[in-house]
């Protein structure tokens, strides 16, 4: 297993390097970065000044190695807009995004796992069909639209929950629900199919032959085995949620990392864009590594190998 994890870590490193390259290339897509920064009203002279000031006059390759070198030492560049290190900006915004992501994940798991179990226990029944219909509907729901609907109906008409900002903890609930919606279908399907397989397995027949209670059979013996892939996918889903929170943060005016990215994109603050892309990619890579690790811990067959 140590070799397996070492291989995975090496792969993660290679992926990180590739993403580093992509995020660098991304900001050079426009052709001339200095022109973009200077804006449409700038004179040729202004552009030259900016080009010099940001080191954009140097060869592309030199700029690239600068970026890789400083990124490796934790320096993700400076914001043109805030005149602060991009890493610091991300660190300041991270708690909001992380809280939002974890809230979303909790809501998603607390919804998807019980519903998935219920659907599996009544496989083929009307209840099963109804639950799977929820999955299809969840998949079709545009998240930003759902967010707006919740703001109108729950926030404004019913006045149950705050609709923007996170001055209090309950500000995370509505955006958390919207974020959870994107992960629920996949997690629910996975729980259901895992439970269907587990419930039909020989060891469940053994558990029944032992006279165990229904709760013990379903929750201890079946769920434990069905949960292994769910846990791994949940970690990956958290990654998607963090990088997908950009839409939800803008709907609910949450000033998290996603919002920072969007703001930087609309204001041509390229070092920050570059940094946010890289940061989210690394978070995702770490989460997939974590998923592998969790799988290895949960599955005794992998632990020994």
């Amino acid at each position: 297993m140590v070799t397996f994890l070492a291989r995975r870590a090496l792969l993660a490193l290679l992926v990180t390097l590739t993403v580093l390259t992509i995020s660098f290339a991304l900001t050079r897509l426009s052709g001339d970065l200095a022109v973009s920064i200077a804006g449409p009203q700038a004179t040729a002279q202004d552009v030259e000044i900016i080009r010099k000031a940001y080191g954009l006059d140097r060869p592309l390759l030199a700029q690239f190695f600068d970026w890789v070198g400083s990124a490796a030492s934790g320096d993700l560049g400076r914001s043109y807009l805030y005149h602060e290190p991009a890493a610091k900006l991300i660190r300041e915004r991270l708690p909001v995004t992380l809280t939002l992501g974890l809230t979303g994940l909790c809501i998603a798991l607390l919804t998807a796992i019980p519903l998935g179990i219920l659907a599996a226990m009544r496989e083929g029944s009307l209840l099963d069909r109804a639950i799977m219909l929820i999955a299809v509907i969840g998949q079709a729901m545009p998240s930003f639209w759902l967010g707006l609907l919740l703001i109108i109906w729950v926030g404004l008409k019913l006045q149950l929950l705050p609709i923007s900002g996170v001055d209090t903890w309950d500000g995370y609930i509505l955006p958390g629900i919207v974020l959870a919606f994107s992960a629920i279908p996949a997690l629910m399907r996975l729980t259901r199919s895992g439970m269907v397989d587990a419930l039909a397995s020989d060891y469940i027949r053994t558990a029944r032959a032992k006279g165990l209670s229904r709760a013990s059979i379903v929750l201890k013996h079946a769920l434990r085995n069905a949960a292994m892939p769910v846990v791994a996918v949940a970690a990956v889903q958290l990654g998607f949620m963090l990088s997908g929170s950009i839409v939800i943060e803008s709907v609910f005016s949450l000033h998290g990392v996603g919002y920072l990215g969007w703001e930087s994109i609309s204001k041509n603050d390229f070092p920050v864009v570059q940094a946010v892309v890289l940061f989210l990619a690394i978070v995702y890579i770490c989460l997939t590594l974590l998923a592998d690790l969790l799988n290895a811990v949960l599955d005794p067959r992998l632990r020994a190998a």
Partner: protein
Amino acid sequence: MSGFPPLRRIAAGLGAVIVLGVAFAAIFAPLLVPHDPFLQDLNQRMVPPSWMEGGMPAHLFGTDQLGRDYLSRLIYGARISMLIGVMTVITSGLIGITLGVLGGFFGGRVDDVVMFAITCRLSIPLILVALSVVSLIGSSLTVVVFTLGLLLWDRFAVVARTTTMQVRTLDYVSAAWAAGCSRSYILLREVLPNIVHHLIVVATLEMALAILLEAALSFLGLGVPPPLPSWGLMISEAKDYMFFSPWVIMVPGIALFVLVLGINFLGDGLRDLLGATRDA
């Protein structure tokens, strides 16, 4: 267990009707619209749908903040959604299927490279990168299509790869090898036809995803540029008025939701019909 086949068949039929209906609206939009979707009439702004109080029979779904007919914009918006969906699937399908089939068929080093590409693609934050690209190159329909196409090939690649691996070991492929057929012949004539039903199902999933993503990009102001009536953009433009007249976001939102739901239903139906698995 078969469960309730009629229910599934009804859903699939409903999906087909929705998708064909939207496609029809998209193709014949100029003939169907009651008004010019770009024509502003500042005297008739924010007219509610005709069944609501203050509605006008001339504007079935009302008008927007610039007095443009909502129904006409909705019909033209179908063009954008369908165009984005179809073109993105073609682009991403070409990339993903090529990579997946090559990896699954040749295995070894080739497969390592393909797997690496898939891992890299999944690590990249989708929406953020799409937004940056559109912002840097400039927003237009073409840019959005190609950006999404270049980003959404991962599922095609994963499914093409696994199914190719399964097909490769089947008897008739071995027989073709033994008969001395060339690699390209085997790939195109033996492998591809036998995985295509899985790929069709993936295509529906990706089409739905592309349509949702375009709407999200347009909603954030970095998708298709105004005054094009993308449904996402319509929601974005209307959201300042939604507290007083919620229908302004309901109309395009429901259109988007119904279309994506229809595509998903159709995909589920095709999966049943073609005997494909969900993610292979």
